[in-house]
């Protein structure tokens, strides 16, 4: 009986100490982390819309050049030249893939794709966030939908290469992009 109580007491105190530590660290760091994430989002939108900025004036440049439209709980970022950008989010192979996609004013070709957060296999799936890979998306057609094809075989205007050895991550990105594009199109129709 005594040992059972001892175990219980230990578990409770260990649980409380750990819990308290985690909650404490969370509270201490959340302000900084939220600020950093806001900066990440805004600078990615600016990158996607190809609006130049410097490290220290991200927030100001964003405020001056981007029009934030909230519709149906979704956010659309519109640049002064009528290019639009919006978020895409979804699950990849390991974790969430989150980024910004921007369309040219014609609303059928891609201007840029930027990945803000991904947790794919380092060296393989994580290459979806590499600049060289994301450059492949420039000026691609989004109609009828983006199609990812085996590396080197992309011919049509709406086809993009898969990363060799990272098929699942590439396919996940394809699904996420297409879904967010069709959501955006739905919003536009309204």
């Amino acid at each position, binding site marked *: 009986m005594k040992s059972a109580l001892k*175990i219980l007491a230990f*578990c409770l105190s260990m649980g409380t100490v750990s819990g308290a530590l985690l909650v404490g*660290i969370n509270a*201490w*760091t959340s302000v900084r982390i939220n600020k*950093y994430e806001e900066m990440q989002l805004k600078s990615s939108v600016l990158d996607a819309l190809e609006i130049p900025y410097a490290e220290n004036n991200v927030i100001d440049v964003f405020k001056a050049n981007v029009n934030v439209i909230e519709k149906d709980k979704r956010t659309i970022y519109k640049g002064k030249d009528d290019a639009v950008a919006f978020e895409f989010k979804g699950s990849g192979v390991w974790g969430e893939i989150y980024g910004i996609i921007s369309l040219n004013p014609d609303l059928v070709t891609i201007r840029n794709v930027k990945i803000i957060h991904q947790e794919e296999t*380092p060296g393989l799936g994580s290459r979806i966030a590499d600049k060289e890979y994301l450059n492949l998306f420039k000026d691609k057609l989004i109609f009828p939908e983006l199609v990812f094809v085996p590396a080197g075989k992309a011919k049509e205007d709406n086809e993009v290469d898969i990363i060799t*050895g990272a098929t699942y991550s590439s396919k996940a990105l394809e699904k996420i992009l297409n879904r967010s594009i069709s959501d955006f199109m739905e919003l536009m129709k309204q």
Partner: protein
Amino acid sequence: MAEGKDIKQSNWFKVLTMGMWADHPTFCMVLGICSALAITNRMDNALAMSAGVTFCLVFSSLFVSLLRNVIPARVRMLAYMTIIATLVICTDRFLKAFFPPISKAMGPYVGLIITNCIIMGRAEAFAIKNKTWLSVLDAFGCGVGYSFILILMALVREPMGFGTLLGQRIMPQTWSNWVIFTIAPGAFFLLGVYIWILRTLAKKTE
């Protein structure tokens, strides 16, 4: 008095170097395989993971050893997992807030480090029964030994699979990438061969 000091000195050195060869976590006790296979496809990942695991090994062994007389026997495993998880998550949040670029690089590893068998294995095999200083040394030794195998793996996988090392191209232009080394099966084969070579060598040197 001098004799006592001598014995102590050789003791800690033995403890430190055991983790690096004779008692190596991966070859001898076959621990920590998951991460040795998953992230060694590039050298920079291997280095980052080595640093992360060594850091967590040292501090979790430290805490387990400090608490060794308080943890009841029945809930040892739970205690280890709690200490390790809390340590890793706090470190991750701290990095996210104050050193975001490092946190971004280490992002996917955080989960892998928590479940890394080596950390728990060392806590169970050593830290729970030994003095703090020795436990820390043992943890550091194992961390170094583990880093050794990660680097060895990446040294083959990155050049043959990507043609680069630490991002710099080192293979001739005519080299066609052995993609198998960038994915899981290649890692398994390579580790099998390494275990073969190193186990044979170790038996020979014993």
